[in-house]
């Protein structure tokens, strides 16, 4: 018997399609449904061609199939506005929700930092923060593991082509959510996030800078070791995650300069910001599946 958990993807846009392509290679998650709201959408057509079931009536259209198809996990790549209802309806049926929207109903999840805890606690809704958060918070956490960080600041620079209308209309949500997660998950006492959108052609690869101010003089060797170890952890699910320069030490400032190259599944390689979201979301679901297979958590019972 397969240990794979069956999944539904809500939102057949760029993110949903990229997620589907990654999922088709997964040893732990099996995509079954793609849910949209427009029967004519390119995304649903693509999903159908890729051999999975499609539904154009929103989440309500699949509720009756959840138990019969044994759906255990859902990925929501729609918007913060509809996420709460999607989550409520699916949670009720015992489906674990991985939230790729900025809704952040559930706890923030940065896989190498706190995913194991969320899986062991069987959190029924986890939020994937933001692309900038996925790329940088592991570094903040790597430093705060060694010693207290009074201030963590991240600067995410992304290609104009990789920033969708949802992010643009509410860019404050990016800075607020990311700064909050730098504190809650990264462990910095105070967090700050900046996003820069660059229209250069050919598009630039996602790059991120992380500055930490440590409470006392930084332990350079221990921080360097911790940072390199954390980079390796992220590379397990995002192979194109690279430390370009650093850690650089200047007084109590510790700085890391990162670059994130995507796998180029559906989204282009420069869009490492989108790729790290889909990769982290899939990694999250896989961890739940692994824990369930090992018997350390028990998925909600079904009659």
């Amino acid at each position, binding site marked *: 018997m397969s240990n794979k958990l069956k999944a539904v993807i809500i939102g057949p846009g760029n993110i949903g399609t990229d997620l589907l392509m990654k999922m088709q290679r997964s040893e732990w998650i099996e995509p079954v449904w793609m849910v949209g709201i427009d029967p004519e959408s390119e995304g649903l057509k693509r999903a159908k061609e890729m051999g999975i079931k499609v539904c154009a009536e929103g989440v309500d259209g699949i509720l009756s199939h959840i138990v019969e198809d044994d759906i255990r996990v859902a990925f929501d790549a729609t918007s913060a506005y509809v996420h709460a209802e999607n989550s409520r309806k699916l949670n009720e049926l015992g489906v674990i929700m991985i939230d790729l929207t900025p809704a952040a109903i559930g706890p923030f999840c940065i896989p190498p930092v706190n995913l194991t805890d969320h899986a062991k606690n069987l959190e029924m809704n986890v939020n994937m923060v933001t692309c900038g958060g996925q790329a940088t918070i592991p570094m903040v956490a790597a430093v705060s593991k060694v010693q207290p960080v009074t201030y963590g600041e991240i600067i995410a620079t992304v290609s104009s082509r990789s920033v969708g209308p949802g992010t643009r209309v509410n860019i404050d949500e990016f800075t607020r959510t990311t700064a909050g997660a730098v504190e809650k998950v990264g462990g910095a006492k105070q967090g700050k996030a*900046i996003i820069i959108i660059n*229209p250069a052609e050919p598009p630039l690869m996602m790059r991120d800078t992380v500055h930490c101010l440590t409470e006392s003089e930084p332990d350079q060797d221990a921080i360097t070791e911790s940072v390199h170890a954390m980079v390796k952890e992220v590379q397990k699910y995002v192979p194109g995650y690279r430390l370009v320069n650093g850690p650089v030490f200047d007084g109590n400032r510790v700085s890391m300069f990162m670059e994130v190259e995507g796998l180029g599944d559906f989204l282009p390689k420069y869009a490492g910001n989108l790729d790290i979201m889909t990769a982290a979301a899939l990694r999250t679901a896989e961890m739940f599946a692994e824990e369930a297979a090992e018997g350390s958590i028990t998925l909600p019972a079904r009659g």
Partner: protein
Amino acid sequence: MNLEGKQVTLHDMSLRDGMHAKRHQISLEQMVAVASAMDAAGMPLIEVTHGDGLGGASVNYGFPAHTDEAYLKAVVPQMKQAKISALLLPGIGTVDHLKMARDCGVHTIRVATHCTEADVSQQHIGMAAKMGMDTVGFLMMAHMITPEKVLEQAKLMVSYGANCIYCTDSAGYMLPDEVSAKIGLLRAELPSEIEIGFHGHHNMGMAIANSLAAIEAGAVRIDGSVAGLGAGAGNTPLEILVAVLNRMGAETGIDLYKIMDVAEDLVVPMMDQPIRVDRDSLTLGYAGVYSSFLLFAQRAEKKYGVSARDILVELGRRGTVGGQEDMIEDLALTMAKAKQA
């Protein structure tokens, strides 16, 4: 050129763009003294914010001597006729900062985006307009795109509620013909009630000439700074612009001798380094690079032994935009490694 009888609103940048040149370390006393003297000289609009706008306090851009709130609360109540403006860059500052500025008595909000990314300003322009503020859309690094593209992005900002649009030469790259073409098209195509503004830098020695070209083409708001205190080779020096406009018969409402005195007696003595067109600031203009990168590139030169000019030219080649200060240390580290290899 005939500017006879034209009314021009000058907008001082020395206490905001000048913050770049002062590493954001202007004291509260200096802020109040300079703003009060400008107020007395008849300056109608004065910008007071961190160099990178509201919320700019950061490792990336530099922590200021005081918060935006402290500066605004110190300056605004002292003004007799001048209005105070604040700058906001979406992605750095948020609507929370905007509301704070409004509560401090700020009259004008200027929402700045890279010239191709106007659609990130909808929240902020919308909120400022809704609160009844004088709301300006500020398209930075406008030398990088065609006049038609500037117009397209300006129309977006107008649709969100901006009542004034700026064509901003953040790199001090433009020559007068380009300014004429861009401002001219904005003036021809935007509704007549929308004001047009121009913000220049002196990196190619063109700030006065460009400002005149902008006025001729229809701009009614011109940014500059007393004694040129601003990023790069500074902004359009306002005391010079006032003198030139006086000679041409354009009207600014500013007392020339008083503004000369502010420049000479208050602002020049504040400068940490001469603000002039030199090798590095000229490179900014020549390579089309964001003016506030200057001091960061010079610091990287000292720390990593890579020439500031080489760093700036490479930043231009890579198409960096405003706000990418973090790229400078990263690039200097990479260039230093390449030198060793």
